[in-house]
């Protein structure tokens, strides 16, 4: 869990004996080695215990309490009340999930397709000054997210922004009150947010690019001899060969999108504008936990997000087996 299939394969290939061997059956030299190993990893062991393991358990316990941080002495055990409220009586939760999923789908499709096609373009042997293009296409990813949001929110301005002016120059009515109001129209706002997200695809492009460079050229040569065109080669060779990379990007993207928060927060302080279409799940979580300081309910909301993330990840790993292709597994 949490690692790609490829990684599991590597782990499995390692000898299992050490795993089953207790400390007692080790030679003094082995024991010394084990001790040093544990000493070296101890920062992570401590950090994991303090900042992952214990808070996770505490979070689960919190979720059974009615507990306001402003009045901790009034905390009381309420059993599964928070969970009951969250699952059956709080429409904001399902609304938040629905919005997160809707936006997630739009953003995932556009973002991943763009990252892949951009990598194909930057990998083309016909492209002059490839390295210059690679650097320049990566640069927006380096723009701090808040600065990117601030800039984009004005580029998307229906009257003064350049995006609408560019669209208008193609003869489409975009500028003005009846034009494309990217951030004010609930039908467009997810696309607007997706555009902002496109400035963060640099890492995915680079990883895709590395994957594309790893595809053996003999495959393309053979296909070319067989008369396969560009589209067919892309579909039949490139995509299957880089599917592990696409899978990795998919998992990271999905996990990131489930926790989508900063863009709506910076643009409208989480008020859901326009027409409640940006009430993302994490925005609701933030309000409950930190604005209203409802630690108990907040913890329940956080656990719910974790469970959703776990289900989706497991689903992806299960279905991934049928479409993710690992060339080395055949040998």
């Amino acid at each position: 869990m949490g690692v790609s299939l490829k990684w599991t394969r590597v782990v499995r290939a390692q000898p299992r004996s050490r795993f089953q061997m207790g400390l007692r059956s080790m030679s003094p030299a082995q024991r010394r080695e084990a001790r040093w190993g544990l000493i070296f990893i101890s920062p992570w062991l401590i950090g994991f215990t303090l900042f992952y393991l214990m808070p996770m358990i505490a979070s689960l316990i919190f979720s059974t309490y009615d507990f306001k941080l402003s009045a901790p002495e009034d905390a009381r055990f309420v059993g599964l009340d928070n969970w009951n409220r969250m699952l059956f009586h709080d429409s904001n939760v399902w609304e938040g999930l629905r919005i997160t999923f809707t936006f997630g789908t739009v953003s995932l499709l556009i973002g991943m397709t763009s990252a892949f096609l951009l990598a194909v373009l930057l990998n083309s042997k016909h492209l002059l000054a490839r390295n210059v293009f690679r650097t320049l296409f990566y640069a927006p990813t380096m723009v701090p997210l808040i600065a990117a949001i601030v800039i984009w929110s004005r580029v998307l301005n229906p009257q003064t922004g350049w995006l609408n002016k560019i669209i208008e120059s193609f003869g489409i009515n975009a500028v003005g009150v009846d034009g494309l109001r990217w951030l004010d129209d609930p039908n467009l706002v997810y696309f607007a947010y997706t555009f902002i997200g496109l400035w963060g695809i640099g890492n995915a492009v680079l990883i895709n690019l590395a994957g594309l460079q790893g595809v053996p050229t003999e495959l393309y040569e053979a296909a070319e001899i067989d008369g396969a065109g560009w589209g067919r080669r892309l579909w039949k060779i490139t995509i299957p060969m880089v599917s592990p990379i696409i899978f990795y990007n998919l998992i990271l993207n999905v996990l990131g999108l489930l926790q989508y928060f900063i863009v709506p927060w910076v643009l409208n302080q989480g008020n859901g504008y326009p027409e409640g279409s940006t009430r993302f799940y994490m925005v609701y979580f933030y309000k409950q936990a930190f604005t209203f300081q409802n630690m108990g309910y907040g913890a329940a909301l956080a656990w719910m997000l974790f469970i959703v993330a776990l289900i989706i990840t497991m689903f992806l790993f299960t279905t991934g087996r049928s479409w993710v292709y690992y060339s080395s597994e055949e040998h």
Partner: protein
Amino acid sequence: MAKRPDIEKPLSSYQAARKRRNLLIQMGITLFALVVLSIYTMPLGYGVMTSLKTKDQASDPQGPVIPSEALQYEYEGEKYDVVYVPTDDGVQKWALIKPTRRVSQFIDINNPEAGIIEWEGNWRALEPVFETSFQWGNYKEAWETIEFLKLLKNTFIYAFVTMIGTLVASALVAYGFARFKFPFRNALFMVMISTIILPPAVTLVPTYAFFVKVLNWGGSWLPLIVPQMFGNAYNVFLLRQYFMTIPRELDDAAKIDGAGPMRTFISVILPQAVPALTAVSLFHFFFAWNDFFGPLIYLAGSRDLRPITVGLTEFNGLYRTEPQLILAAATISMILPLTIFFIAQRVFIQGIVITGVDK
């Protein structure tokens, strides 16, 4: 002049056609990439351009693309707008001295000695003359209004302290995983990797309650810094992958010389792993530069401790009517990350590829 024989050989028409075709494809694809790139980076251009405009122009839908000001002409101690006037000798740039409904008075700015010229027509239909003019003062104003130096100092201290912390811890942990055998090593490694998929929200609520209520660390940097002193999964993974490529013979040689594990780590592993360590430092630096959620919840109300991200967000909310200042501040905040990236891109890009592809 001696010619190389292969050039003299005439190309067959097939080869020539192929060469021409290749050249066309090259130009087509490169041109296409240029178009895509200019659309993709267009907001950067917009941001910089708008940050150099006057307030009026920044929010004027009809304003020119390049920052500019209406040209004015001084005549007898007064300033007048310069407009384009259609005359018999073509369009002239004249300063509008006295607008009246039917006949207005002008001065030819290229020939002021000629004195007042009268022109018949509606002066309201005349277009003003703009000349390029960059409002560099916006940057100064933004810098001062947002107290950028303070934000920068906060961000820098935070980024630097946590960078050192996470680098030391992650390198130690990575060394442990890469070079030593101990019980449950693989299982622990898997657990560590799987923390990547854990949404931070799950641990956030109790951690927040603990830091703020038990340790009383609210409004300080401690809750942001301390948890980063223990190494994180991404960094450990990257460093471990790199350490594993360092030949073990080097370790063994050091061991024969009597070096203990710690000594080997410092004098053999670390010097060999400089590219990976640099990559991790850069990643962390950019992460810290961008960190928003942590400072948002822990530093609420502590204005003096805010990093750039939180400061810029507040600024964006408070100065909605001053887009040129907001964009100037946004531009300032991205100069350093972009500069570092352009200088260190090779190491940086390799690091991303290692984490992405090796997994």
